[in-house]
């Protein structure tokens, strides 16, 4: 099971946090800090796997990918295959790239809700449900299209629409 997905900048700023197993909100920053310290201490050209049972509890491992100014981190337990998760990170990044055309950190900062949408298509309740980036893109685009259609109504202030709905 995947326990968490994190995207953070190389300065240690969280860009996206999604926890699939419950973590109390006040602990989130500690987790981010712990992971960041771990990753920033690792040299380049070493393996992408780290055991993190000190941070996430027994058996927890993480796979990370360092791309430009970002770390993409997937935390999971022993039921996943490290290499496969590494490719899952790749799927995620490829999907982002398709979505934003040459994705950069700013895209991710400003559109973190879109990142959540993409992740929700890939992972649900900690289980991987979709691994084809093409398929993911299709769903995301459809969501965007349908959202745009219904967008027109939302320009009206809510007090007015509430009055209408009464």
């Amino acid at each position, binding site marked *: 099971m995947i326990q968490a997905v994190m995207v953070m900048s190389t300065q240690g700023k969280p860009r996206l946090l999604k926890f699939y197993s419950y973590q109390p909100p006040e602990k989130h920053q500690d987790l*981010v800090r712990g992971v960041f310290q771990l990753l920033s201490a690792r040299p380049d050209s070493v*393996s992408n796997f780290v055991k993190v049972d000190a941070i996430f509890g027994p058996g927890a491992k993480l796979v990370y990918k360092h791309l430009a100014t970002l770390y993409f981190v997937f935390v999971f337990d022993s039921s996943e295959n490290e*290499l*496969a998760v590494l490719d899952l990170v790749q799927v995620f990044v490829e999907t982002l790239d398709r979505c934003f055309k040459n994705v950069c950190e700013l895209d991710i900062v400003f559109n973190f809700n879109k990142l959540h*949408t993409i992740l929700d298509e890939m992972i*649900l*309740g900690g289980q991987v449900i979709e691994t084809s980036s093409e398929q993911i893109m299709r769903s995301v685009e459809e969501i965007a299209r349908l959202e745009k259609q*219904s967008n027109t109504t939302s320009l009206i202030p809510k007090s007015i629409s509430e009055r209408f709905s009464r």
Partner: protein
Amino acid sequence: MEQLRTIGRELAMGSQGGWGQSKEFLDLVKSIGEARSKAEEDRIISRELDHLKRRLADPDVPRRKMKELLLRLVYAEMLGHDASFGHIHAVKMTHDESLPLKRTGYLAVSLFLDERHDLVILVVNTIQKDLRSDNYLVVCAALTAACRLIGEEAIPAVLPQVVELLAHPKEAVRKKAVMALHRFYQRSPSSVSHLVSNFRKRLCDNDPGVMGATLCPLYDLILEDPNSYKDLVVSFVNILKQVAERRLPTSYDYHQMPAPFIQIKLLKILAVLGSGDKQASGNMYMVLGDIFRKGDTASNIGNAILYECICCISSIFPNAKMLDAAAETTSKFLKSDSHNLKYMGIDALGRLIKINPDIAEEHQLAVIDCLEDPDDTLKRKTFELLYKMTKSTNVEVIVDRMIEYMINITDHHYKTEIASRCVELAEQFAPSNQWFIQTMNKVFEHAGDLVNIRVAHNLMRLIAEGFGEEDEGADSQLRSSAVDSYLRIVGEPKLPSSFLQIICWVLGEYGTADGKYSASYIIGKLYDVAEAHPTDDTVRAYAISAILKIFAFEIALGRKIDMLPEIDRNLSFLNGYVQQAFENGAAPYIPESERSGVVSVGNYKAQDQQETSAHALRFEAYELPPAASQASISPTTDLVPVPEPSYYKEDHQMSRSQPSGDSLSGEFGLKLRLDGVQKKWGRPAYSSSSTPSSSTSSQQATNGGVSSEVGGSTSSQARESTYGSKRQQATEVSAEKQRLAASLFGKADRKAQAGRKTAKESSSTEKVATANATPQPAKEQVIPSAPPPDLLDLGEPVSSSPPLADPFTQLEGLLGPASASPVVSETPASSTSKTPDLMSIFSDDVQTGVTSGSTEPSLGVNVVAAKKGPSLQDALQKDAAARQVGVTPTGNNPILFKDLLG
């Protein structure tokens, strides 16, 4: 330039507002990015939060704006700020009929809340309604939120709809419904157990995505109860075959691999189903062989599948051909340059050696490389492998390696783990007790605070008990070597508390036992310990009782030691406490001699007291009793309250305060020692000291002299002998202790002598047991004198006591096949010949494979007792035999391994 470009991009995005982000949000992100300090960032965000609080409560905000405000709130919370005031707004937004708002609401809710949150109850209703929606996106959003927010109690409320959705025309919905059901199953298996059959049905879904998603819950179910899913083996194998043969739509291809994630999941499931099941495994060999053949080692995902195949093969019923293929792939992994693949290779190797330990042999170089690798992850993984491979023949190298690594890491969590592994391996496989103690010392020195305190107690007991040998000489030799090493270490700064406790205890017990170190030297060291750790009461207590013990020994031997000048004989440090007690209304202490009505025998002191402190409460009438008590010496013996006299003495006569100290330390372990006393010295000892026990001070002084003479005479022969006998002297001579014994045990003393056994049972330490030389198995006797033959020392069969590391033994041990032991019968006499056939190691004509050939009937010989420290002779035999048969890695130049030899 780069900055300009990003600014341009920001502007473009700001103006286009593609995802509804406004200039304000842009500014917020930018100002946070430019913040120079954490404080500045916090200021910016709390300003933002104030703003959001106002705006969210404002009814005139356009609804589209609401969405953005909420997203900003999510952002602020992600940065670690409390946004709980906005949670209710998120919940409200899930009610909105507009899709983007509803989705944003669900997103925010599932990020803000969890199933235990109070507000969830408000969301459940909405989820329920939305699951029935016509818009599949709404349904999807509701299902996603349900996965996160529906707790055990809420499951029945949404369960019927979720089950209905399993048949939804949209595959995205079916997929999510399967996952939601799985999630409910994880939360509360009982509430959905009747629906488990739905997962089987969904396995036949025509959409590969849904089928793939169904594998997740099935995997969990099969893990729990593989037997009820054995009928699915054939279906899983079929699916895997079809996937591997590219029957799925190409959109599921990933880097030219057909649906790799589905393949991996299937392999995981097959591994569980085939475990220990020959028939089920038989169905799998074909497809596994196919996958191996088609395996693509160039891409990452191809390797992921191959790795999963190896895992599967090592888990199912073993098949020689499959294992060969797995071993071959493993060696490819290990030879790869990629750290990731090496990591997987080590992991795979760890799985394969469980089935066939020989596999490790050919990869020894690669394994050692990984151990040397700068990559910490890889190193740890390799240690894990070594841990699995440890045997009594290689434990020394492996544990030494582990300790060396342990010293250099700072990660507490891992340090604890590796320290406890060292302890575990050392306890299980230690080749000699000497080595065990040295290893434990190292572990304690570097990670003492992280190890279970039980281990420290074990070590102390081991040193005290000896090793069950009758040969006391070996035990005392070991003790003095422990003392030596501790004296060396004790001065070092920052030793862990539990290690200091051991050190103090051992120094106290055995510090002066072999006469190498003077008592004052040891006491000085102990004093330093107590001084250096003013806050650690336990260590100080250990140190103090150790000092007292040494004094007791010295007194017992009739030596006079100078008390450390630092000791405050007037107990002035208690003045404050006393003063405070007075202020609180405590009555001042009245010396016993001055109390009315109490005729104490202790008032032989009264003469001294009278001059100094007794004016206030003295009455002439009481002059008489002292004389009386002096007159009647012997009859009062048994009535003497023991501690008081000793207490007085501490004040007045320094040299005699030691016995009192001993009686103090006696509180911890004294009973036992008295047992010993009675046993060996029995009545004479008892009677000799019974006389002085209640005499006047002058009498006592002489008696002290007498007793020390006794001690001195015995000391010459008993000096280097066991602790027990020394202790006997100590107790025998120390008059205070005799009295304590008399008062504590009284007449029962003599009875106890008869029923000594019962007394021993009740005693807490086993020291006496050793002193009594209870018969113990003597098989470990050989240990210190017969280390494995040294490679460089061909002529000399026996070397000195610390077993020298033989490079070949180490290597064999580390990577040699486990079948090293069966070989013994080949050369039963090898232990006597002692000169190992070295040539056979280097001659290439000796095949490695011989091992397995020559292992026939010898099992009876080498059922080695796996007690702590198996017989070294056996190990020696094995070792020599193994070499003659050529088990040692044949083609490898030993110099390559010099890193392993330190």
